[in-house]
């Protein structure tokens, strides 16, 4: 397979974009990407596109991308893989280039969560991930989906609700300098612990906000990298992992096996391990999920995640900063865009251009876990060609 590099990245700010539709957000992200390719991009160079969108607003997703971005003459493929959609779109596009089929491809991720009434959203989204007869009627809201894991994790591991709060505090702090982030303010552990309960054990600040947004990447083959930049970021590894779709069939709920599988595949492809990762964007839709993911990604030993948040290892300035962008928690989480936006952040980190720069970062990891906690995607990027 050929080497693949990211040579351009762009994203809209994440937030409640009531004034912008999906037909605005998608071209905005693509144009921002195109405007920031070091040596310029002629759109006619783009040979194919992969579009990660979890839900649809305003209709037919691939057509909307082609139509709104002036790309009517190339194939566009929609990727939908729950909250792993963004990094799975990156994975598919990577293979499209690595295979030799295309030299220059576009990856876009987008979603507009705040497009339906708050009352309708819950059941619409629940229908995407639940067994219609058995689980859907139980009212297994998205936070409950993950809380079932985290409640058991808190029971078995030394981690406490204070550790969950510390994750929220860290990611809120990280978001402050990020102009793309939705929640750019700091909170305290006390605020997090005393906030209204959403789904016990999660309180308000343990949860991602609902967000709209889009992100775009330009992936090219090694052969043509020089046309676009002298500072490419290499896609070193991609991986996807799955699990049983019903919680009652998951034997050990203190871990996410899809993450373990996706990380294993991505590390193997990259020829790298957890120790090689300088900075990571980890799926923190709920604070406890970030902690469990430290272990699943190999950053911490089993039931040792709390130590990393306690001693600052995963804060900016620590030895393994996690979510310098603010993460889903504070940057926001339009699911289809999330993974692509993680790669946007890491692209900037690995080029030394990030708003919240991690000094000397050379290798980075992006991670999503989603659906009925049954799918994960991991992408490993590096400034080293490998």
């Amino acid at each position, binding site marked *: 397979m050929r080497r693949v590099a990211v040579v351009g990245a762009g994203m809209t700010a994440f937030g409640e974009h009531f004034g912008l539709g999906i037909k605005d957000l998608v071209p905005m992200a693509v144009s921002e990407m195109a405007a920031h390719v070091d040596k310029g991009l002629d759109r006619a160079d783009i040979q194919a596109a992969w579009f990660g969108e979890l839900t649809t607003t305003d209709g037919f997703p691939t057509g909307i991308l082609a139509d709104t971005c002036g790309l009517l003459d190339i194939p566009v493929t929609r990727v939908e893989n729950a909250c792993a959609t963004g990094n799975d779109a990156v994975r598919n596009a990577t293979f499209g280039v690595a295979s030799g089929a295309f030299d220059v491809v576009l990856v876009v991720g987008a979603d507009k969560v705040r497009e339906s009434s708050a009352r*309708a959203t819950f059941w619409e989204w629940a229908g995407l991930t639940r067994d219609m007869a*058995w689980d859907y009627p*139980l*009212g297994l809201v998205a*936070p*409950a989906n993950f809380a*079932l894991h985290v409640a058991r994790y808190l029971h078995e591991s030394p981690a406490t609700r204070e550790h969950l709060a510390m994750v929220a505090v860290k990611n809120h702090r990280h978001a402050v300098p990020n102009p793309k982030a939705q929640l750019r303010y700091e909170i305290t552990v006390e605020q997090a612990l005393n906030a209204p309960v959403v789904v*016990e054990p999660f309180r308000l600040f343990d949860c991602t906000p609902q967000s709209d947004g889009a992100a775009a990447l330009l992936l090219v083959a090694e052969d043509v990298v020089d046309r676009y930049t002298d500072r490419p970021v290499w896609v070193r590894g991609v991986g996807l992992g799955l699990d049983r779709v*019903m919680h*009652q069939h998951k034997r050990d709920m203190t871990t996410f096996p899809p993450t373990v599988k996706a990380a294993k595949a991505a590390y193997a492809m990259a020829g790298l391990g957890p120790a090689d990762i300088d900075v990571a964007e980890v799926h923190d839709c709920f604070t406890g999920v970030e902690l469990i993911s430290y272990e699943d990604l190999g950053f911490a030993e089993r039931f040792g995640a709390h130590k990393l948040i306690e001693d600052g290892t995963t804060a900016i300035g620590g030895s393994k900063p996690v979510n310098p962008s603010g993460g889903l928690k504070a940057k926001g989480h339009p699911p289809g865009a999330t993974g692509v936006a993680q790669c946007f952040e890491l692209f900037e980190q690995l080029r030394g251009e990030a708003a919240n720069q991690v000094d000397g970062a050379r290798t980075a990891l992006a991670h999503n876990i989603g659906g009925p906690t049954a799918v994960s995607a991991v992408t490993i990027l590096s400034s080293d060609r490998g």
Partner: protein
Amino acid sequence: MAKLAGLGTYLPPWGSARGRVAGPDEDALTLGVAAARAALTAAGLASSDGSGDVANLPPSATGGSAHSPGRFGRVANLPPSATGGSAHSPGRFGRVADVETAAAAGVRRVVFVTRELPLLVGGNAAALLAGIGLAADVAVVEQVGGAPAVLDALAGAAPGTLVVAADAPQAGQPAGAAAALVGPDDPAGPAGGVGVELVGRVVRSLPVHSQAVGEAAIRDYSDARLERERGVGVALERLGLAEKPVVAAGLAAKQAAALCAGSPPDLPTLGASSALFAIAALHELGSGGVVLAAEQASATAVRVDGPPAAVRRDEPAPLAPEKMTRTPGPDIAISLPAYERAFDAKLRWEAGRCDACGTLALPPRRRCLACGSEAGWTLAPLPRSGEVYTAVTVHVPVPGMPTPYSLAIVELDGGVDVRALVKVTGAKPGTARIGDRGRLVLRRVAVRSGVPDYGYALFPNSPAASVAGEAATGTTEGAAR
């Protein structure tokens, strides 16, 4: 004369000593199912905590055909005489297969009496049979009625009739349910069955409380003296009872006491179920006697020829009702094909047992979780108790669903290696903890686009019961009220 083989009662765990209210996940059907299961347990036809089916299952009776919910083969340990009795020739039931299955279960007919039928169009019978654990070929009568109708149904019932009476009234009236199984009129039948015989009946009209079809609420004419004097008063006069009743159902405690001999027990309900609560009360009174059931201007009296021996009360101690937040929203969608495919396993609490290796899967699934066989599966009863593996409590408002509520993943007992994701019922939200134990009970999990969606919920054992190592079901002798 109808012989009582078993009586069961159920009171919702919410309310106070003054009266119970149905939980947000209860309706007349779930109340009735709880009482019916208690009655069958009392009659020795079901185990209280057991495998969930109504009785032990001889292998020959299962039929064993995969994916064939038609023949569940729930078979009771009923004496053979009950099936071959000349009074109940197969001809009455049409097909011979019906007789075999239904008669073998000891219950041939269910009469469900309530004024709050969950579905007026769409039917409640299948859910009722599935929840009770009866075969799908048992006849069901869905009857709108009150306390006199229940005594009428009972006194005139053929052996093998299960009379189920449920009250899930609008706010302000107490909720509860009771059920009575009429056993074989046979000296070789279950011992201790007391007889119930009609003494008299008066059917009159004085609709001081009324609700026409299509009206949302009950209208109240608001004249208590009229109701007392020209309603029950005239009805009693016309009945001309030779002796005073010992218990009176359908009446306020004070009024009942005024017309009964001795001091009659307080009954927990006023509607259909109160008639059977009245008969059950004879167990505690230790005597038989005349039982009266009144409703507005009508009344029925029966004589019970002794204290019923087989009474089981599922009457947990009352908890103060939770303050729930109700959030309006769009109808919760339902897929009726998915509903229909899941129905038997979901309402009968059964797993799919892999025909190749025997592994149980809940819900049933084509490909075995363990061996990967896709050759087929057969429904098999699941244990109705287990331990909480993980639990969470939803506080955020959810449209169409009263909040807060708790969800739990429960590891079922008996080493079956099956976990279930269920709602928690009968306990204050947020109190079910990892490691807690409880039993699985039928509840209305949701109302989806107007259709009640029944399934099982975890009823945590009360701390006292846990200590004693018993199920949460209070087999109290009326004291829990």
